């Protein structure tokens, strides 16, 4: 793997007595697309603002390329930010917006002109240079905000929920656009979002955060398939999270039924959380599954049917391409490989404990 | 370190502005306790002006006129302002901005010009200068403040709540009172208070539209300037000021976020 470009060590930050980040440790590699993902108030934006230099942490240090930049003001940092709601300068035209950072640095007119042209081409907005920001659509303003940041050739681009204000279709288009940009520029992206789909689509690494703690760091596949705790499982996609007891290695009991699984090392007779994705529940005619149940709700979702099945005293969420009508008796089974076992938190608090690799 | 320095500089700056704004007010309050009749020298502490104030017919009469003018003119202006805003909503944008432009005139124009223009009007109509002419003038310069306080709320008003109320069976009048009024109320209240304050503090327009034999506090003070202000006037001003100060503190204290925003006369408090 490439080297660590940014390191956050032991970062804590509170606002008016509210602890927003608690002893956070995180590193970001060169050329990585890293996403900070979590619900609002989880500390993801604060983390980004600390990297950008808009907040100073109460404790801890921020290292950039081996040097401590904790107290360096934003205008001295080699990174640029794309802000929520774009923060374009409404009194300047597009060209002047893009040229802002370059003029401050005292670049030559020729250089600036070339850069503007290059940046506008990069974000597919050639010919928009003389327009005012207000006359552009949300998606176009977003691209200008990105162009304004990247002409400064930052080592890292910080993006704070940049697609939050766009509608769904545009958001999906922009996701591909951002991936393309990242490839072309070959720089590090640090991306903040609360949208799990966005995170899964674009990231190399996802950092799931909640209540100021990092819950899990991993590739999109890791995070989706092997959530480390109930919070991550619940936040990333829909899940059936069921109380269970790990009887021994590779055997778990829940809802009064024993299921073989692939997890080991939990000890014997240990209470655990069992996570099963709705698409991993296999429906069959009754008596052919491990559990019997009755379909209580049915919705057609296009790609699949979403069903709720009452079985073993639990309301299962099931995604299936085969339709069973409401009231039908079905059998449920799960491939051992798709049963995810997680330790129960010892207390409510521990649900938010940082789990570092 | 740098932050602490700049924040204490800021505090110092605000403090200096406060001293600048309040030094005259403190001076007046001190003068109201001055036993000497002239403001030039301090003659010891006394409460006597506060007592003699209430037997001073001139001052009490001017106070009565001032309050009546302020109360009636701001009430009439508020009623007319609310009706106007509702009507404006249904007009074509062009007509609306023309009317709002005319409304802006008394606010942007110089008071002396407004005062003179009204004086000429009353003269040419052969009206007797007195309570009536003052009242008409005050209503005229108060309406713009009311309209400009209500209009922003009117613009933001979601008409579908009104339609929803009617959809649920309310009569238009009932829907208006139950649904639209509560939305406008903060604007109406602040408009009324602003108009009241403006009317109370006005001197110039009253100066040109009043007749002999009637005075508001402002014009009374103006005529006293040459002979020397009666200390009772300082006492009265202090009473008014302290009353408003206490009211403002009461309104601001218990529920800082809501009440302060809704009740203070200045809509700028509504971010």
């Amino acid at each position, binding site marked *: 793997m490439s080297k660590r470009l940014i390191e956050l060590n032991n970062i804590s930050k509170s606002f008016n007595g509210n602890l927003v980040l608690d002893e956070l440790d995180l590193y970001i590699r060169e050329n990585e697309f890293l996403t900070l993902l979590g619900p609002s108030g989880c500390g993801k934006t604060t983390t980004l603002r600390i990297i950008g230099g808009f907040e100073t942490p109460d404790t801890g240090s921020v290292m950039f390329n081996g040097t401590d930049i904790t107290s360096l003001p934003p205008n001295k*940092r080699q990174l*640029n930010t794309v802000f929520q709601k774009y923060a374009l300068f409404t009194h300047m035209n597009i060209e002047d917006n893009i040229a802002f950072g370059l003029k401050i640095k005292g670049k030559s007119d020729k250089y600036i002109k070339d850069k503007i042209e290059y940046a506008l081409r990069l974000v597919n907005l050639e010919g928009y240079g003389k327009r005012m920001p207000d006359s552009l659509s949300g998606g176009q303003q977003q691209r200008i905000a990105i162009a304004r940041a990247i002409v400064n050739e930052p080592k890292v681009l910080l993006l704070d929920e940049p697609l939050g204000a766009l509608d769904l279709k545009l958001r999906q288009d922009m996701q591909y656009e951002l991936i393309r940009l990242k490839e072309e520029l070959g720089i590090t992206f640090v991306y903040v979002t609360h949208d799990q789909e966005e995170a899964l689509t674009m990231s190399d690494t996802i950092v799931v955060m909640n209540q100021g703690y990092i819950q899990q760091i991993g590739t999109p596949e890791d995070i989706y398939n092997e959530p480390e705790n109930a919070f991550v499982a619940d936040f990333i996609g829909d899940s059936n999270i069921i109380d269970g007891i790990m009887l021994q290695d590779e055997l778990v009991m829940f809802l009064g039924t024993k299921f073989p699984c692939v997890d080991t090392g939990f000890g014997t007779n240990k209470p655990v959380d069992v996570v099963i994705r709705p698409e991993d529940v296999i429906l069959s005619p009754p008596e052919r599954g491990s559990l019997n149940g009755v379909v209580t709700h049915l919705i057609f979702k296009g790609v699949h049917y979403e069903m709720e099945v009452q079985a073993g005293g639990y309301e299962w969420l099931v995604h299936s391409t085969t339709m069973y009508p409401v009231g039908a008796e079905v059998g449920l089974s799960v491939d051992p490989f798709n049963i995810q076992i997680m330790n129960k938190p010892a207390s409510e608090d521990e649900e938010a404990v940082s789990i570092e690799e | 370190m740098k932050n602490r320095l700049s924040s204490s500089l800021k505090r110092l700056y605000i403090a200096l502005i406060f001293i600048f704004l309040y030094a*005259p007010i403190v001076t007046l309050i001190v003068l109201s306790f001055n036993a000497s009749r002239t403001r030039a020298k301090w003659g010891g502490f006394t409460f006597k002006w506060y007592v003699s104030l209430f037997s001073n017919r001139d001052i009490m009469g001017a106070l009565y006129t001032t309050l009546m003018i302020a109360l009636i003119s701001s009430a009439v202006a508020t009623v007319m302002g609310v009706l106007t805003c509702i009507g404006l909503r249904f007009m074509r944008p062009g007509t609306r901005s023309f009317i709002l432009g005319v409304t802006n005139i008394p606010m942007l124009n*110089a008071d002396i*010009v407004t005062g003179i223009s009204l004086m000429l009007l009353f003269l040419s109509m052969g009206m007797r200068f007195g309570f009536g002419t003052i009242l008409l003038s005050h209503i005229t310069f108060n309406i713009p403040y009311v309209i400009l306080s209500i209009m922003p709320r009117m613009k933001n008003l979601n008409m579908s709540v009104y339609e929803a109320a009617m959809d649920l069976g309310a009569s238009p009048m009932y829907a208006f009172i139950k649904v639209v009024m509560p939305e406008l109320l903060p604007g109406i209240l602040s408009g009324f208070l602003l108009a009241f304050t403006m009317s109370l503090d006005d001197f110039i327009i009253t100066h040109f539209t009043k007749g002999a034999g009637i005075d508001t506090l402002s014009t009374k*003070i103006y005529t006293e300037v040459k002979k020397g*202000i009666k200390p009772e006037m300082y006492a009265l001003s202090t009473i008014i000021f302290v009353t*408003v100060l206490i009211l403002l503190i009461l309104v601001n204290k218990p529920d800082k976020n809501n009440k302060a925003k809704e009740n203070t006369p200045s809509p700028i408090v509504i971010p």
Partner: protein
Amino acid sequence: MKNKKDRTKLMSGPYLFWALAFIIIPLCMIFYYGLTDRSGAFTMQNIMSIATAEHSKALWLSIGLSLIATLICLLLGYPLAAILARMKNRSGIIVFIFILPMWMNFLLRTLAWQTLLEKTGVINSVLAALNLPSINIINTSYAIVLGMVYNFLPFMVLPLYNSLTRIDDNVLNAAADLGANGVQTFLKITLPLTIPGIISGITMVFVPALTTFVISKLLGGSKILLIGNVIEEQFTQTGNWHLGSGLSIVLMVFIIFNMVISAVFDKNGEGNVL
């Protein structure tokens, strides 16, 4: 439905009548009086009399003093508005700065400066106690400017404050992010974005300062005449309404010029006081 809409429109009726009778017609009366003589015949004499030595001196002095007062208000008010806009719990302070002083009568407030500024007044006593030289500005143009700044400073701060609070924090952050230091951010971002507020503030201070007759009377002694004093005398002492109206028309040229400028710079009403 159409009928109902028309009926609702009628609710503006009383005010439209009022505005015609008490705003538009009175202004027309000024023009009528200003452009006629006592016999009712058309004349430019009233307006041209601004060129006489006495009147033009008063006008130039008014323009000079009100420009100085406006500039001082801008220089004092901008930092104040900027500090207020950055404060968290500001509603209280704003009320105390802008609303509360209005409840102490305008004339008394201004008169109090006499007591403060007099040769043996409060300020000089304090200065003497500190062994500093005394200031003698009462009954001079300086005192008039001070009175203008004192009375109209809030009108400058309010629109500035409104346009400053309208700037998104992230726009300033973006400028810093792109390498601008504090001064650069102020000059390239904050200042241009607050131009509507600045223009509106200048208008709000310049017009009343230009036209005042009270402040000059209370703080300037009887020797200093501003154009406002000249006009006021025509109405309350000389009784020459035609001349007073003519001079008012001259004054209105400045006021209208001011309004046009503020309308051009402030299309969205951003700098409105309200």
